[in-house]
């Protein structure tokens, strides 16, 4: 089980929207049941990222991140998501 931390400004709005889209995209790639997504705030990344395998952020991040990081703003735009999904899948299968 890979642990994904999905962050936005508040841990509420855009991360909820992107959570559904990432979950669907990963399940479509046959990864159902192999990942677990936790939502959080951008300001928590420095502290929490140690416990995760991957951070997906919908916002710019300034601080440190202790695991691979993917910027997921594309999921909100609804275009250009395929390369991002490829990247996420690659990190998860490592």
């Amino acid at each position, binding site marked *: 089980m890979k642990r994904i931390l999905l*962050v*936005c*400004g*508040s*841990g*509420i*709005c*855009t991360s*909820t*929207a992107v959570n*559904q889209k990432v979950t669907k995209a990963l399940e479509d790639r046959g990864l159902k049941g192999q990942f677990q997504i936790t*939502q959080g*705030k*951008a*300001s928590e990344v420095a502290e929490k990222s140690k416990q995760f395998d991957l951070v997906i*952020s*919908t*916002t*710019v*991040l*300034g*601080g440190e991140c202790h695991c691979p990081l993917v910027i997921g*703003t594309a999921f*909100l*735009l*609804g275009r250009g998501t395929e390369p991002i999904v490829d990247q996420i899948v690659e990190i998860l299968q490592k």
Partner: protein
Amino acid sequence: MSYFLGFFQYISDLGATVMMPIIICIMGCILGAGFGKSLRAGLTVGIGFIGLNLVTGLMGDNLAPAVTQMAERFGLSLSVIDVGWPAAAQIAFASTVGTIIIPVCLAVNIVMLLTNTTQTVDVDIWDYWHFAFTGALVAVVTGNQVYGVIAAILNMVIIMVLGDWTAGGVEETLGLPGVSLPHGFTTAYAPIAMLFDWILDKIPGVNKISFDIEKMQKKFGVFGEPILVGTVLGIVIGAVAGYDIPAILQLGVNLGAVLVLIPKMAALLMEGLIPVSDAASEFIEKKFSNRGKIYIGLDSAVGVGHPMTLSVALVLVPITIFLAVLLPGNQVMPFADLAVIPWMFVLITPVVKGNGFRALIIGIITLAAGLYIATDLSQWITPAAQKAGFDMGSATAISSICDGANPLTWAITRLNWINPFVGIAVVGVIAVGLALMNRKKILKEAAEMHAAG
């Protein structure tokens, strides 16, 4: 139009928890999300409302008596509870204007795109509530829902134009190309930031001051944790109010719970709106993807992670509380919205070009003014909340230092309070004027692009 609105009045009288599932379900079906999915989405929103009411009731019951007692002991005038933006969103969506806000705003966006008065396809359907909030307040001050709808439309036009104009800064400073942030709260601060940045630039000496504020993020990081802010604030308020030790500790844990639980409930609201929002944004994007330079309008949350935005906002949390106590005439006790100060800075950050000193000065000015605005607007937010079936607990007056302190919302509401004809005319002239200026700019750029291509 009044029959039409009368129908929505009836539906909104059913109460938000019944009305929202119906509205969302119908809207989801119309936009092609399917009945099952739409029904589940609608019920999720209704459940979010019920959850929010439980938490805000808990907040009112605990915080209001403590603040009252504290105010009485020390002769403070704090009597208005800051219930936070999730409550404001609930009030907005549950208002009569709110029930029709999504189709109305979609129509406004389409008309603006067709007339070349905007370059933004605003897919951030969720944040239409800011416009509905202004509309709901105007409906309360004028007693007329039609004025409310018009005010919401004009509010959106102004924000859409400002969104286009700040898109360059969004790309440069926040690293988000092709994105604009037409956000009812964030974007209203862009012109204010431009004005004060210009003034600070003209003061000899002061215009040389600049400091890096980002290092303060670690020191002030604790102010970004709702669980600690709520608990500590509860303990302090309880102690100042003269509670005994057990009551102080209970107040602390209760208020910590409130600040942690409110966002969870708001997430349900958001989750329920996703199918409608997805379908609507797909619809509008499909229609307009083949045009010239187009920005996608997103929630300003995508810019909140900028280190300066976060740092300045954290530093301002304790400053806001001190201002609330010290400023004569302020009645608002800041609480739930202390967590959303970063949203105020998303567009201030690009305007001041990373100068922490200016961001801090502009922040203090806007928050001080914001407290007075929130105090002033509470006389209309409170009845709007009651009308929306909002549970205030034992609080008698509420406001918010997010949208309840929004200068644009305040200006539109106050102008309509003077006289709805004057209000609509003045705001209308400004909105149409901005839209025409934007049209000129868009057409000029299109001609240049054409000539170059």
